[in-house]
């Protein structure tokens, strides 16, 4: 994979494919799930070929997303481990929100907001997957009691709402912070972007003469 001269690799091709597979599944799950959640949104089932198809396809997409998100966890968990820096960053969240980051602590590969999205989803996705299995009438309906399914359906709905809101925050943050979208589509950012938003990460890349995305990878910084 080639990137424009002088840029820094933010997300490898594998990461991008993994991310967009997850994203595609998530959008389809939101659309099909909301169709079955609220009568006002039942028309969304037309996107899937009607109610029967929506009901049938939703759990399969969920399976793909579950596996796909496991891939993201494997790739990202280490850089999302929380630290004291995150607490200091969160303490300055009011400055971050208004684009005034003068005295906001330097951030490594991911900031505390991104970590919250990551771990939030890392919690919600498996809960959604397993509660979803219990109400997958066709294959697993007989394995749990109806009373259990009443509870799991409620949990499934609540977690889905949480995940949707988290996802909306995630999407807006990518729009808000210019250059982030390109990082996940073409995979690269400018050094200036890295300096502004993930200065500690940039420092570590420079120390190891790495072009990113992780220190030690691609020893061709500056090319």
């Amino acid at each position, binding site marked *: 994979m080639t990137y424009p001269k002088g840029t820094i690799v933010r997300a490898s091709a594998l990461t991008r494919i993994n991310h967009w597979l997850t994203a595609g599944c998530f959008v389809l799950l939101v659309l099909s799930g909301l169709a079955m959640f609220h009568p006002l949104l039942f028309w969304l089932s037309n996107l899937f070929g009607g109610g*029967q198809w929506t009901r049938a396809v939703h759990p399969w997409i969920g399976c793909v997303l579950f596996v796909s998100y496991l891939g993201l966890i494997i790739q990202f968990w280490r850089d999302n481990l929380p630290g004291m820096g995150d607490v200091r960053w969160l303490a300055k969240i009011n400055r971050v929100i208004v684009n005034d980051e003068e005295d906001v602590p330097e951030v490594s590969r991911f900031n505390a907001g991104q970590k919250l999205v990551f771990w939030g989803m890392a919690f919600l996705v498996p809960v959604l997957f397993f509660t979803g299995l219990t109400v997958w009438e066709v294959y697993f309906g007989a394995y749990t009691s109806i009373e259990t*399914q009443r509870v799991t359906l409620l949990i499934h709905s609540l977690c889905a709402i949480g995940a949707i809101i988290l996802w909306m925050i995630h999407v807006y943050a990518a729009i808000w912070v210019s250059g982030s979208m390109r990082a996940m589509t073409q995979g690269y950012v400018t050094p200036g972007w890295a300096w502004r938003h993930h200065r500690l990460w940039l420092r570590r890349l420079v120390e190891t003469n790495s072009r990113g995305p992780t220190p030690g990878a691609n020893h061709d910084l500056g090319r």
Partner: protein
Amino acid sequence: MSDLQAQDFIRISATTLTPPTARNHEQEVAKLIDVSRCIGCKACQSACMEWNNLRPEVGHFEGSYDNPMDLEPSVWTLMRFAEWENEKGDLEWLIRKDGCMHCEDPGCLKACPAPGAIVQYANGIVDFISENCIGCGYCEKGCPFNIPRVSKVDHKSYKCTLCSDRVTVGLEPACVKACPTGAIMFGSKADMTEWAGERVDELKSRGFENAGLYDPPGVGGTHVMYVLQHADKPAIYAGLPEDPHISEFVGFWKGLIKPVALAGMAFTAAAAFLHWITVGPNTVDAEDDHHAEELIRSAKEKSA
């Protein structure tokens, strides 16, 4: 199954609109099952299969009079046989005709996500409209009586229709017509309640002190009612629920969280948009580029 005019619907699943209400003078119907008069002949089961063209797969003898053993997509009513030893040590054979109770406040309808897949007619009958059913099984979660069954073949949910097609044209349900002892009666809910009162009095005079009518208020009453010899212990009749009501989990899921969830999403979207038009994008400036290049250059010089 049967599809009456939309004007006859008083409740429609998964709709936020008010069903047509102009027809407001229809009499509520009820089926009264007098357990004390049932001889367990299963004529009602046969009649149900006959009228509704249902032929469940022939099963195996399982050591019980129950046959088949449970309700199925093609078994809409079923005699459940229970042996109960009363206080005097005598055996009582309690035979209950199980099937949809046609609740006044139907849990299946409340849980259903498919518009118009479950409807309630003005006469009180709760009916599944198969063409709208999506096969999700939410009705099973909503039902306090464990009645609906989703077919593995066509992914539609099925249950007793109270022979809505027969009732519409002034006939009684097939099971009622077939009952040889008059244990199953059909008429207006008011008439059936009154008749049940007479039966209860008679049973009491015969020593069944706790005889009574099963018309559970937890679901707003039902359009299928039982006369029970031991109305204080419905559970002895093959697990008839003591105080059936729509589960709180279903109530919460289908009640409060629906508007709250939509509001939460709308709020998040609105907050993001407001942020965009007030604060705006966070963009890299020339200073950032300069600092970054400086950092990279100094590192290069050091290593060179």
